[in-house]
């Protein structure tokens, strides 16, 4: 059962089992048949042998009986004893044969035969033969004959017949045995045939079984599978075997399961499919959404790209115009605008895209009004829809609209700094776009602010650098390692940076120090000082050095630079102290010279008075001493005067009372006074100009000429001609004083006008002097906007030339208006918005014979100028608001041609703007409130100056009260 179960579990095992059974059957069949056949043959052969043995034995028995019979017969017949023995011997043989036969006897017949034989034998040998032999011996031969005749012979023959019958029976048996064998062999043949037939039947059956068990189910499977494949619904329970346990069974089960599962799955699938269809619908809907989203994303990406470009465009440059251009182009791209403009509100910078010059101009001209004003006021973006005009529509004929977006660029202080206007044709700006664009606007604001900050800082930096460059000191800033961080131009000029570096900035200490050292004398000390200064924790020190091959003296100040109380570097300021050094030098020389100069006359006075007081002196000696004392006292006095003059002049405290004076008059007076001091010199005054009037301080100019002429006398100890020549040259009145004296060595010429400088040589040691005369001459000349210079040939004489500004002559000008008006009196314009004040001034001036014309507006006065030319104008600076003010009038007038620009302007103002006014060309300045008489006096003075210039006679003004 188990095996069966086992076999049933496997088709192959089943097949093997089947085959085994078939084989077993075949083998067993063959064996059984062969064995049967063999048994049969053997049985028959044994049977045969047995029968043949029986036959043989029977034959021998028969023979032996016959022998015995004949022997006894012979004995009787011949009485031969041998025969009787042989007859008796036969009994033995027969008894043996009977034993043999007993062995092969099997059938009852055999045993009956055997018993008969044995019975007969016993009778024959036990009764008959002994009786007959005894009778025969007794000679009863008759009796023997009788016995033989009576029966003996008959029994014998019966026996013999029986044996022979049995023998034939056995022969028959052998015969029938053979026949039986043949018959049985034929049976065996039949059996073999049946066996073969049964094999065929079995095979056929097997095939059928296999077909039934395997092929059919398989083909069914195939069919079902095909049907399933074809998508038909199959009832597997009906069609398929499932109670089998072999592969097919399992296959079937599996198949069933599969089919069921497939069917289930198909159901599922159908379900799914429906779901899927539903989902697909959903997906399609989603796809549409996604596509929209994608489009949005793409737009966002574009926007991002634009934004990136935009940001890059902005961050790449710090140039305002470039950035503005980038902004507008990128903004137009991002917003898909067709036109756009961005403009600062309070600066001229702007950039546009797709807008004509005229359009730009129109926009810029209306920056402060219209929609821009709204933008500035509310600081919120807005859009405007408008119908496109003809040129914007292109070839489209139908109505189309343009949309303008106004975006404010608002700075951190929430002020609108710039406006951005974008224009789109056809498509309006959407709410969400506006939000994004406002984001951009913020970014733009930041960028612009950055640029402005950069500009500002750059401007600051440049200004700082400019300031540094204007500083006369060389400035160098180095870091803690001594690397140069900043310098100004002056530093490089001082140290000739260009000759040893392409740029001092960034140079290490060694490099720049070497460069600088090559320029100065105190190389080591200089280097030591700078190195220490850089290394010092805090330093505030200076060092003085000289530049090679020059007389330049510099002082370098080192100061540590701190930031948040931490040293970040060192600042070196190289100051050219050549002048200071010279001044220092001069000061100390000055002190020693003053000391010397003062002590010398003092010593004389002291010494001579002491001698006079302590010694008895002759009168002539007394006189000589007193004269010396007097001279020395005079010298001392003039020395002190000169010294004080120079001090005053240098301190700018000397006041000059300048008037129009005739220089020739002064010179003549000086010559007259100097002539007294000499007999060896003769003077010659040569006037080569008709105009010798200058504006100057009479006393000071007199001092100038006294100094120069007395010098000429002093330094031409051998006498000679002193020539004074007046001439006109390039707008100056020049006065040359020429002597034929000692002359001045060339190397002394430069220093000649320095204080206390005195040409130091033997031929002039006796010539006294303070060394201040020429310094005074120079100061006074400068104070008169003039100059003094010297030319000299050593040993032959010197020429000192004073030049003073020439007072121009108006008679040279050919202005008819001026001339004619002058004869009628002075015409004065008053420009004053305060009518009551104007009235007061008018009254005052008219009392002083002026013709007055008042204006409240400067522009009116300007118009009137063309009609009548005034001699002077009294101008108020602050005029009515919104009108041209005094400054404007003055600029306007001064920019006009002569004679307008020449009209003197007297400022009458409450403002303290003297300097600016005078710089602009005002003739004089009166600060309100002032006395009315001050104005007329000032006017007169001013006009007098002008008249003098023009050599025009004027009536004596009533100024000297």
């Amino acid at each position, binding site marked *: 059962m188990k095996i069966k179960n086992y076999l049933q579990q496997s088709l192959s095992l089943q097949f093997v089992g089947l085959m085994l059974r078939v084989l077993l059957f075949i083998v067993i069949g063959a064996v059984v048949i062969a064995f049967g056949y063999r048994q049969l043959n053997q049985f028959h052969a044994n049977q045969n042998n047995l029968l043949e043995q029986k036959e043989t034995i029977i034959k021998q028995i028969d023979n032996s009986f016959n022998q015995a019979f004949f022997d006894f017969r012979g004995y009787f017949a011949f009485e031969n004893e041998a025969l009787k023995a042989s007859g008796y011997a036969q009994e033995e043989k027969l008894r043996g044969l009977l034993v043999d036969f007993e062995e092969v006897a099997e059938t009852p017949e055999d045993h009956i035969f055997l018993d008969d034989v044995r019975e007969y034998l016993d009778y024959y040998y036990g009764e008959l033969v002994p009786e007959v032999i005894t009778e025969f011996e007794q000679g009863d031969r008759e009796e023997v004959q009788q016995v033989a005749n009576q029966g003996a012979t008959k029994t014998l023959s019966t026996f013999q017949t029986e044996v022979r019958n049995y023998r034939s029976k056995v022969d028959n048996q052998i015969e029938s045995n053979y026949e039986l064998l043949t018959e049985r062999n034929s049976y065996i043949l039949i059996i073999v045939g049946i066996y073969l037939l049964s094999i065929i039947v079995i095979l056929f059956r097997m095939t059928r079984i296999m077909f039934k068990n395997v092929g059919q189910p398989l083909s069914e499977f195939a069919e079902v599978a095909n049907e399933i494949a074809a998508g038909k619904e199959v009832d597997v329970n009906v069609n398929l075997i499932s109670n089998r346990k072999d592969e097919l069974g399992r296959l079937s089960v599996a198949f069933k399961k599969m089919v069921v599962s497939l069917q289930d799955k198909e159901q599922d699938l159908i379900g799914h499919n429906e779901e899927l269809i539903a989902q697909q619908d959903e997906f399609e809907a989603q796809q549409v959404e996604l596509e929209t989203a994608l489009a949005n994303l793409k737009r966002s990406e574009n926007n991002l790209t634009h934004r990136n470009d935009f940001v890059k465009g902005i961050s790449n440059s710090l140039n305002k115009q470039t950035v503005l251009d980038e902004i507008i182009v990128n903004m137009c791209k991002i917003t898909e605008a067709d036109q756009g403009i961005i403009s600062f509100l309070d600066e001229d910078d702007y950039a546009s895209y797709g807008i004509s010059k005229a359009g730009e101009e129109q926009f810029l001209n209306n920056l402060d009004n219209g929609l821009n004003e709204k933008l500035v006021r509310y600081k919120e973006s807005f859009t405007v829809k408008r119908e496109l005009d003809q040129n914007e529509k292109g070839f489209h004929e139908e109505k189309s609209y343009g949309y303008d977006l106004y975006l404010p660029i608002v700075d951190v202080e929430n002020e609108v700094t710039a406006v951005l206007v974008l224009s789109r044709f056809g498509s309006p700006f959407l709410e969400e776009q506006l939000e994004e664009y406002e984001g951009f606007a913020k970014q733009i604001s930041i960028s612009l602010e950055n640029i402005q900050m950069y500009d500002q800082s750059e401007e600051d930096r440049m200004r700082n650098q400019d300031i540094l460059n204007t500083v006369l000191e060389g400035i160098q800033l180095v870091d803690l390692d001594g690397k140069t961080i900043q310098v100004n131009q002056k530093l490089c000029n001082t140290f000739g940076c260009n000759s040893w570096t392409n740029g001092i900035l960034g140079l290490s200490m060694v490099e720049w120090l070497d460069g600088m050292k090559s320029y100065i004398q105190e190389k080591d000390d200089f280097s030591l000082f700078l190195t220490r200064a850089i290394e010092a924790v805090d330093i505030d020190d200076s060092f003085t050095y000289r530049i090679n091959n020059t007389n330049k003296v510099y002082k370098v100040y080192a100061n540590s630079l701190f930031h948040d109380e931490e040293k970040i570097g060192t600042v070196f300021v190289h100051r050219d102290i050549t002048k200071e050094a010279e001044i220092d030098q001069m000061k100390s020389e000055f002190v020693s010279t003053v000391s010397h100069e003062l*002590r010398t006359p003092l*010593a004389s006075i002291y*010494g001579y008075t*002491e001698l006079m007081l302590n*010694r008895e002196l002759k009168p002539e000696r007394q006189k000589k001493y007193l004269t*010396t004392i007097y001279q020395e006292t005079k010298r001392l006095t003039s020395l002190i005067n000169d010294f004080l003059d120079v001090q005053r002049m240098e301190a700018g405290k000397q006041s000059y009372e300048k008037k129009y004076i005739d220089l020739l008059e002064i010179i003549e007076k000086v010559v007259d006074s100097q002539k007294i001091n000499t007999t060896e010199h003769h003077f010659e005054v040569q006037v080569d100009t008709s105009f010798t009037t200058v504006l100057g301080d009479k006393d000071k100019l007199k001092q100038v000429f006294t100094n120069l002429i007395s010098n000429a006398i002093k330094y031409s100890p051998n006498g000679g001609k002193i020539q004074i020549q007046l001439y006109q040259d390039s707008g100056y009145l020049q006065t040359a004083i020429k002597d034929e004296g000692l002359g001045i060595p060339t190397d002394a010429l430069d220093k000649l006008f320095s204080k206390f400088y005195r040409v130091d040589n033997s031929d002039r*040691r006796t010539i006294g002097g303070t060394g201040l005369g020429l310094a005074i001459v120079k100061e006074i000349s400068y104070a008169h906007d003039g100059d003094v210079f010297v030319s000299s040939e050593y040993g032959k004489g010197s020429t000192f030339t004073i030049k003073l500004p020439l007072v121009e002559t108006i008679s040279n000008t050919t202005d008819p208006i001026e001339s004619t008006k002058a004869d009628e009196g002075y015409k004065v314009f008053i420009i004053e918005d305060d009518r009551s004040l104007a009235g007061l001034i008018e009254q005052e001036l008219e009392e002083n014979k002026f013709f007055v014309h008042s204006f409240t507006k400067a522009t009116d006065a300007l118009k009137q100028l063309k009609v009548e030319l005034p001699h002077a104008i009294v101008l108020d600076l602050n005029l009515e608001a919104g009108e041209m003010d005094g400054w404007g009038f003055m600029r306007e007038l001064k920019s006009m041609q002569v004679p307008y620009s020449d009209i003197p302007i007297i400022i009458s103002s409450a403002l303290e703007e003297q300097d600016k006014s005078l710089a602009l060309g005002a003739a004089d300045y009166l600060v309100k409130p002032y006395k009315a008489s001050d104005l007329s006096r000032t006017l007169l003075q001013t006009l007098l100056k002008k008249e003098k210039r023009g050599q025009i006679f004027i009536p004596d003004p009533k100024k000297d009260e």
Partner: protein
Amino acid sequence: MKKILLAEDEEVLRMLIVDTMEDEGYEIDEAVDGKEALEKIEQADYDLLILDYMMPQVTGLEVIENIRKNPLKKDAKILMLSAKNQQSEQEKILDIGADYFMSKPFSPLALLEKVEEIINEN
């Protein structure tokens, strides 16, 4: 008679000193500047040299330096007159080799006294 050389560029002072000294019987040679002084020193021996500090061309200091270098003249007695009366200047003058110093303005009688003192030392 004691012989004195006076080097002074100021004529009035020269006259003052000469008058003061000659009245007392000194023989005075005059030089108007350092250069002339050196020439005269070369030619004669003086009991005393009175030198002004500030003279044109060759100053009194230079004269002293020159003399002190000259083996023949280096022991000459020198009195320097100077308007420079600061302590530092005086020291400088004495350092360079002047034996005596007198600042301007000076008293001619005091100078005379000083000269007599110097000459009588020897």
